[in-house]
């Protein structure tokens, strides 16, 4: 899942997970990255490619979101040394 939705409040984060799951879309609550989600502690991972369907489902249920982001996890592998 390469998409991330941030929220103002956990009330809406929990509702978003339920809404997307019921709509048949993949969704999982995770600890929100601080730079994107300083608010309620949680953010929702989802498939970025499904963002239009996801946002429509959330709007229909009056779920308020902070923002939609493309998620790029950091890796632990070091790049080649600079010389």
């Amino acid at each position: 899942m390469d998409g991330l939705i941030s929220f103002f409040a956990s009330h809406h984060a929990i509702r978003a997970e339920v809404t997307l799951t019921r709509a048949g879309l993949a969704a999982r609550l995770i600890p929100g990255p601080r730079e994107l989600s300083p608010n309620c502690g949680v953010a929702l991972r989802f498939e970025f490619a499904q963002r239009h369907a996801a946002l429509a489902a959330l709007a229909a249920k009056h779920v308020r979101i902070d923002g939609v982001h493309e998620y790029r996890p950091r890796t632990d592998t070091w790049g080649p040394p600079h010389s």
Partner: protein
Amino acid sequence: MAVIYFDNAATSWPKPPEVASAIIDHARDAGGNPGRAGHRMSIAAARLIEDTRDLLAALVNAPDSSQMVFTLNATHALNIALHGLLRPGDHVVTTSMEHNSVMRPLHDLAAGGVEVSVVACGVDGALDLDDVRRAMRPGTRLLVTTHASNVVGTLLPVAELGALARAHGARYLVDAAQTAGVVPIDVEAMGIDLLAFPGHKGLLGPTGTGGLYIREGVTLTPLVRGGTGSDSASEVQPEFLPDVHESGTLNVAGIAGLGASLRFLSEIGVDTVRAHELRLVARLVEAASDIPGITILGPRDQVRQCGVVSFTIAGATPSEVAQLLDDSFGILARAGLHCAPSAHRTIGTFPDGTVRFSVGWFNTDLEIDASVAALRQIAAWATRGVAWTA
């Protein structure tokens, strides 16, 4: 001696067994702080809160669950509504049947410049809509009434009052302390802008739970400000629901129990609970009416009554009757003024008060019959002055 519990208007007992299980499960498996972190126990607690919020919203037909705020009890919810809405110079209309949970905040607000009109109810607790209409003025800010009297059980016509308030441009706040979970409530159909209710009475949940429904577009200044888990970078209280009125850690254990009791209740259905209580009250009133010396107060039409019945017995004080009921029969009832001195003045029982029986889902016909037999013995003792032998 088996206990017969007739104090459900104070708090319901017993609770469904699922309530205790849910509280234990929470303590064992989901003990995180909701909305404060992203770890699994915090998320589990937040899910539990939101599940319960959804159930509450569905119960009263609230359009959106964010309009449902958790409180500690109905009194807390009423204080948020009254102090959050009313400002010096505002005019508010209420009734003489209100509990002190409405009267005391209004008294305080009146001292600060809010104008309060109290519409007198009849001796049966009934409210005349024309009297309310006469009390309303152009610019009246709020109408606040109980849904049912906690003293005599009289139901007020909330749908008509909601329409009346709206026609006058006022908001309508309902104290559903005696009706949430036992009388159907629809905030949309009844025109209710603010609904305050406890979780531990008709909803069969634990003490320390309650809620306030706030209609979209109604803005209340928060009573308490603090951490909400949201907008954490700001030192200013968030303005969005439900967070604006939910500062500090919620009673998650209690709300877990409330969720379980709401599921229990939704399987039975509020209509079924209402029919059960109506039958019990009718059985009680019919059988007790011919006891010599008893005076049953309130409406004589049980369709206009919730599961609360008040009475007095000639020759005995209410507290004597309540003590005899407990000591000799294991019947637990409440005597006195029931935190509603104005209601007792209205029905003519101030300052002595009454004995109150309040039934619930778990009470039975057999318990009603046993209590009537007990009252018959107590009345005989009180009116004839015979020695007490039970």
